């Protein structure tokens, strides 16, 4: 019954999305207020219904209802409860349902809480949101029905891929999806503003919280995904330029650019057309990301779904939305009046530099990701790997960091080059000093990229806190702290990346229980190896006592075997110290009884993810700092009369 209820709710939600689009289009075209007043209630009802459908699917997984095809294919009654729960979205159909659920919920939130926007722009935005949802409903109902039954029902399910049975991964995809959907809302705002010819600061302020929230979630998602790949794959790397990783990086790059340009638009009323264009690009990248991951076009470490029909469906949706938006943009860009002017030396100009560099990086990553697919279409198989991305994206990212030092130290609208130079003197001196120290201490041991990474990290770290100097810290707005912490996070993260690639020590050795080995100042003693059984796996687990100085610990790397589906995974053991991580992997046993052991000491590698979290925290603080006043106003006013926008002026 639950499956039928879910399917019915999904159909009704789809019908309501169609109605929402119809009301919005007809209401705006014919100027009928009574039609427009129907848009909000329909949007809210649609959100509730699609949420119901999603809860039905979760319930089916929870109860291990093997008569539902999706559950039988992706779950197993012996699975731990967390993965039964997470299994609901750890597959193609479920994840698309999650996507459309978050979209429906976001649409309902826009309908309920958006007060600052002009009414017609608001209704156009909800119409655009309904149009996007409608495509995904069609996709689910016609080609990926999550509620399809199996007859006869199998006795038990096939299980979830063991690589995916990890607490981090249970919440990694939803985080990214929430980010993708946040960008779809930003896109809807942009379309709404284009339709009603209201591309201005007011629209930017309405769009900004959605961009910020999406960006924060993408940041968290990418950081978590990187850490997951780091400890779960047991390769010691934290970024592989895998197409699926790029699929999450590209929307993030676009969202980062959008975040900065929407701030220019909201604060200074400049970069109007450019901001709208970026909103379109950012959502396109979410769609490209979804297409790459969900179509199965990439057979990579991460992509488990294989079904070309679905890929074409998503591609068609992508073409319709992006083509439509670009056509609308081309038609209306003439009516977007030019915004405020700024000088060559100004914060706006540096934010333009930020936007351009991010766009170029995005373009390079996009081409590198899609190129192998395009050549394959012509029957020629090519792979584009880390050398390509590192070589181009690395230097561009470092250039971006340099612009980041200067940006916050430059005034809006107009500044004097000499004055800005004076403010930059300390970061520059710090970089020179760091360069000299590194040049002497680590001469010849560093790659160029690592060297400049470390040097620039020092400059960015200092430069990002300078805006707080000589300020009354208690009266400094929260969003300034947000910016400072996010920029500092970039410095921290870059320092971690450079340190990992420059100073990691690796040791590979075959050891018998009782053996001792030294690496990077650590002493490792292989105590013993013994079998171990878990809920749905068995493993060989090694006990390795490690010590350095006075510090002692026991690590337990495992080689784990899952029964359904039959798969072996290596579970690395990681010891985190303040100055780095000791990373131990147990390999296979040799004929003479020894075991392969791989040992890394990675100085300051944790900074990579600490920096990522700081960037996300900075985003959260900015969101609260910028929006708190509006939220308080709305709370106090309740659902009283719609604001006209004056409260923001």
């Amino acid at each position, binding site marked *: 019954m639950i499956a039928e209820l879910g399917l019915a709710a999904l159909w009704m939600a789809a019908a309501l999305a169609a109605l929402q689009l119809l009301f919005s289009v007809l209401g705006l075209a014919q100027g009928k207020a009574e039609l427009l007043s129907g848009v909000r209630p329909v949007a809210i009802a649609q959100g509730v219904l699609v949420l119901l459908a999603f809860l039905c699917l979760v319930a089916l997984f929870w109860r291990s209802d093997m008569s539902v095809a999706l559950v039988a294919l992706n779950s197993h009654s012996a699975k731990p409860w967390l993965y039964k729960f997470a299994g609901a979205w750890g597959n193609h159909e479920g994840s698309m349902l999650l996507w459309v659920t978050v979209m429906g919920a976001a649409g309902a939130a826009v309908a309920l809480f958006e007060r600052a926007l002009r009414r017609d722009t608001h209704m156009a935005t909800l119409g655009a949101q309904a149009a996007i949802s409608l495509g995904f409903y069609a996709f689910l109902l016609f080609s990926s029905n999550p509620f399809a039954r199996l007859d006869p029902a199998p006795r038990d399910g096939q299980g979830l891929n063991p690589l995916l049975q990890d607490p981090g991964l249970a919440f990694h995809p939803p985080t990214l999806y929430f980010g993708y959907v946040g960008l779809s809302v930003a896109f809807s705002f942009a379309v709404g503003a284009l339709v009603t010819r209201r591309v201005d600061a007011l629209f930017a302020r309405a769009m900004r919280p959605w961009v910020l929230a999406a960006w924060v979630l993408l940041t968290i998602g990418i950081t978590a995904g990187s850490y997951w790949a780091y400890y779960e794959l047991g390769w010691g790397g934290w970024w592989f330029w895998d197409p699926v990783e790029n699929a999450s990086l590209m929307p993030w790059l676009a969202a980062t650019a959008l975040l900065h340009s929407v701030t220019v638009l909201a604060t200074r009323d400049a970069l109007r057309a450019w901001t709208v264009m970026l909103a379109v690009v950012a959502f396109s990248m979410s769609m490209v990301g979804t297409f790459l991951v969900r179509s199965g076009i990439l057979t990579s470490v991460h992509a488990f779904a294989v079904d070309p029909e679905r890929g074409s469906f998503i591609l068609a949706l992508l073409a319709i939305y992006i083509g439509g938006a670009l056509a609308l943009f081309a038609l209306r860009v003439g009516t977007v009046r030019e915004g405020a002017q700024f000088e060559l030396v100004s914060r706006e100009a540096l934010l333009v530099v930020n936007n351009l560099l991010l766009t170029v990086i995005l373009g390079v990553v996009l081409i590198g990701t899609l190129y192998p697919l395009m*050549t394959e279409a012509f029957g020629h198989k090519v792979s584009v790997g880390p050398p390509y991305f590192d070589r181009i994206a690395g230097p561009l990212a470092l250039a971006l960091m340099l612009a980041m030092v200067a940006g916050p130290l430059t005034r809006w609208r107009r500044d004097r080059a000499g004055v800005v130079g004076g403010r930059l003197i300390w970061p520059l001196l710090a970089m020179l000093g760091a360069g000299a120290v590194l040049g002497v201490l680590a001469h010849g041991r560093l790659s160029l990229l690592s060297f400049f990474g470390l040097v620039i990290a020092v400059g960015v770290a200092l430069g990002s806190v300078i805006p707080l100097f000589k300020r009354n810290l208690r009266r400094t707005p929260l969003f300034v702290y947000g910016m400072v912490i996010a920029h500092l996070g970039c410095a921290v993260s870059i320092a971690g990346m450079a340190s990992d690639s420059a100073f990691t020590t690796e040791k590979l050795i075959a050891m018998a229980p009782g053996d001792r080995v030294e690496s990077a100042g650590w002493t490792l003693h292989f105590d013993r190896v013994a079998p171990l059984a878990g809920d749905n796996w068995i493993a060989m687990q090694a006990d390795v006592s490690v010590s350095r100085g006075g510090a002692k610990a026991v690590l337990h790397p495992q080689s784990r075997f899952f029964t359904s589906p039959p798969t072996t995974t290596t579970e690395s053991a990681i010891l985190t110290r303040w100055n780095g991580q000791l990373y131990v992997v147990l390999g296979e046993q040799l004929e003479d009884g020894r075991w392969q052991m791989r040992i890394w000491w990675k100085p300051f590698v944790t900074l990579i993810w600490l920096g990522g979290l700081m960037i996300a925290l900075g985003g959260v603080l900015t969101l609260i700092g910028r929006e708190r006043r509006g939220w308080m106003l709305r709370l106090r006013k309740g659902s009283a009369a719609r604001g006209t926008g004056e409260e923001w002026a």
Partner: protein
Amino acid sequence: MAMKKKHQRLVLALIALVAVIGAGLLAASALKDEAAYFYTPEDAKVKGVEPGKAIRLGGMVVGGSLKKQADGVTIAFDVTDGKAVVPARFTGIAPDLFREGSGVVAEGSFDRNGTFIATNLLAKHDERYMPRELEGMTYNATSHEMKAQ
């Protein structure tokens, strides 16, 4: 210093256009080198790869060629695509599903003697995964029969 006010928008649009074209050219020039990133043993024999150049070598592990060396962490094996055979060496923990007769994509470079020194092996990760370059290749480890797409 100041831009002509009327022209600011035009200038910005032009800069954006230049940046996008620049990205394309940058990517194209780098891809020209990288297009040669993936090699089959036959490609490597016919085109020749200079020693030390980072590439991916893909093929099947020849049956009976896998040898463990005394240090316990180095393996030597031959990679074939049915047309040519390349000797390869790898120090590290091989993926769980790396075995004779299975597909492998090895990242690394050739040494001066023509042995491929792999720094990383990508093997079939689970029964549903196949390195994308090897899609369509099948190989029989006992008869050494090889079928490409």
